[in-house]
């Protein structure tokens, strides 16, 4: 039993941090070319796939390290959808499609909708994407469809500056791949969403702690006031537990443990609350400067909000957590 990250995992996490350093979202959801290329070159998109499928034979726990870093940076770019799309493509035997995704030449958007494609769907990061990962939460099902530019009927303004939102028509969209085991895709997605949420929680903690040491009022750093220091301590508890529960869930999936579904749901639920709460109090800890657009505090809150509405929503979490 060992939840300590390996040397490789630690190196990976710091490489991710370096690629994303100083890159808070500029708005609009499009990852800058430099970051996207570096991510592909480092193998972020191939990491969790088997070597035989053109992957790097990494574990879900390895992927979680990457996504924690992406979350902490509130980075833009469809990293998660692209990773998941590559997995769906591989499973469906679409080798060239998978390669285009893992090499970073093709980006994937995502949307939550029934697979029949009848109604227009609200999709995330569709601008600049060549394929769309369509997730049906009810069945569950997942498929990849082609998104030509003409499928975009409207660009919508996005609550979260790290993604773009668009309305798509899919009635004539070509299906490229169908996930045979959508449940696996969704459960891995849930772990990686949790990892991003844990990253958000950690980034909020770090921002608050740094500011509490720096900002002075009444002749001393605000961190000297217990209202602030206790809150920072609570943030630290939440973010440390969030990081740990993500690792626990990821390793449980990697080891195919029977209790994995419950642990995935626990990670999903806990990291959601931790990220939302840490992001909220981080704004409060900064005072008015934390309320401005210029400051990154709101980006963490909006990331947490967006991710909280991603795969495995609350009712699904509850069901999994209470299952015998």
């Amino acid at each position: 039993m060992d939840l300590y990250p390996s040397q490789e995992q630690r190196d990976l996490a710091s490489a991710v941090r370096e690629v994303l350093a100083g890159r808070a979202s500029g708005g609009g959801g499009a990852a800058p070319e430099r970051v996207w290329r570096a991510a592909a070159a480092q193998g972020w998109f191939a990491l969790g796939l088997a070597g035989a499928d053109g992957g790097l034979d990494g574990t879900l726990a390895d992927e979680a390290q990457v996504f924690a870093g992406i979350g902490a940076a509130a980075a833009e770019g469809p990293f998660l959808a692209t990773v998941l799309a590559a997995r769906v493509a591989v499973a469906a035997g679409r080798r060239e499609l998978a390669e285009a995704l893992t090499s970073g030449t093709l980006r994937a958007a995502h949307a939550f909708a029934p697979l029949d494609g009848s109604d227009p769907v609200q999709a995330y990061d569709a601008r600049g994407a060549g394929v769309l990962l369509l997730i049906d939460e009810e069945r569950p099902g997942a498929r990849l469809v082609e998104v030509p530019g003409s499928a975009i009927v409207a660009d919508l303004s996005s609550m979260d500056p790290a993604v773009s939102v668009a309305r798509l028509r899919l009635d004539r969209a070509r299906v490229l791949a169908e996930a045979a085991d959508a449940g696996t895709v969704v459960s891995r997605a849930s772990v990686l969403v949790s990892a991003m949420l844990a990253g958000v929680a950690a980034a909020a903690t770090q921002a608050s702690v740094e500011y509490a040491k720096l900002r002075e009022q009444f002749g001393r750093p605000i961190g000297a006031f217990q209202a602030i220091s206790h809150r920072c301590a609570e943030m630290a508890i939440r973010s440390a537990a969030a990081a740990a529960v993500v690792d626990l869930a990821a390793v449980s999936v990697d080891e195919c443990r029977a209790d994995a579904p419950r642990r995935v749901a626990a990670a999903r639920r806990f990291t959601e609350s931790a990220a939302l709460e840490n992001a909220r109090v981080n704004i409060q800890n900064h005072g008015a400067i934390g309320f401005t657009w210029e400051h990154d505090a709101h980006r963490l809150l909006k990331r947490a909000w967006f991710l909280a509405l991603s795969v495995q929503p609350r009712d699904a979490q509850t069901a999994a957590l209470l299952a015998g």
Partner: protein
Amino acid sequence: MRLELNAREREFRDRAADWLVKNVPAQARPPSGPDLVAFDREWQLRQYDGGWAGVSWPREYGGAGLSLTEQILWYEQCALFDAPEPGVFSIALGHAGPTLIVEGTEEQKHRHLGPILRGEQVWAQGFSEPGAGSDLAGLRTRAQLDGDELVVRGSKIWTTRAHLSDWQELLVRTEPGARRHRGLSFLIVPMDSPGIDIRPIVTMDGDTPFAEVFYDDVRVPVTNLVGRRGDGWKVAMTTLGFERGTMTLGSVIRLRRLIERVRVLAGERCDRRGRPLLADGETAARLADLESEAVALYALALAFVSEVVHTGRSASGTLIRPFFAELSQRVKRTAADLLGREGLSVDGSRQAAEIVPSYLYSFGHTIGTGTSEVQRNVIAERVLGLPRA
């Protein structure tokens, strides 16, 4: 104790309801720009003409000269009929005017109080500075006496509506050598004075509600001093007393209305399986919690007003603001949650367009007018007599 209105109160309430039915504007308040200012002006003037501006302000300055009880009844009727809020006049009506009533000279009262009630003066509050937020007494903007003028140099930040304002309550340091609370003065400054430069600041909801304001040798006549030179702290505390006390009452009353609307939303919207959100136990419990808190807050506000009416003072004023600010943030969070993924774009629906920005803006409630933490310090030290940290 009674909740039943007496004859006088009933007459007031019926008259208010009667007037509001006929006068509340049918069109919605424009979201921003000159249309919004014009809308607020028009509404304020209409209230003035109807005799409803400044319900609890003295008659000699154009108010109705009634008590806080009538003020509350007025707010309740306004909430009931969805009357517009004071909008750009919130500072003028909420604390600039009330401060002048208590501390201003006769000349100042006549110059400002009537025009404020008629919607002719938009006011801003220039207290906070980059280095002096919670620690207001640490402010550094200076005003030096030069003949019968004070010359202001420095900068303020987070000044709500600086770019729309005609006048400002400005807190400055006038007594070199005097430390902190001593040595401050409270000035009325026309915002079109030469030497004032205003740079709007964008907030997390994408709006520009406040600005940074620079003062480069701005000349202000000494007759614009409110209170004596060096007595600015006392005057500023009067202002903050209104800002954190009576000014919040209207919003407290409106909050119950807001919760009602959230409940309607939860009844109308359905989850993925087509069940109304309100049928979900978790959502229902959350709304019930909010409702109980809002009723308790309303009760606290009534108790506060009643105590003031009976005894002329009440310590519970300071309890209301942090309770309100935090509750209203939770109400708005709940509304945002009900939107689900529709809330991920304000273009998603009419409700998203209203709820998302209002939730994001609510983060300012627990920071502006003094942070929730500072308000807790005030309660601990001044109300409960606990030792200072």
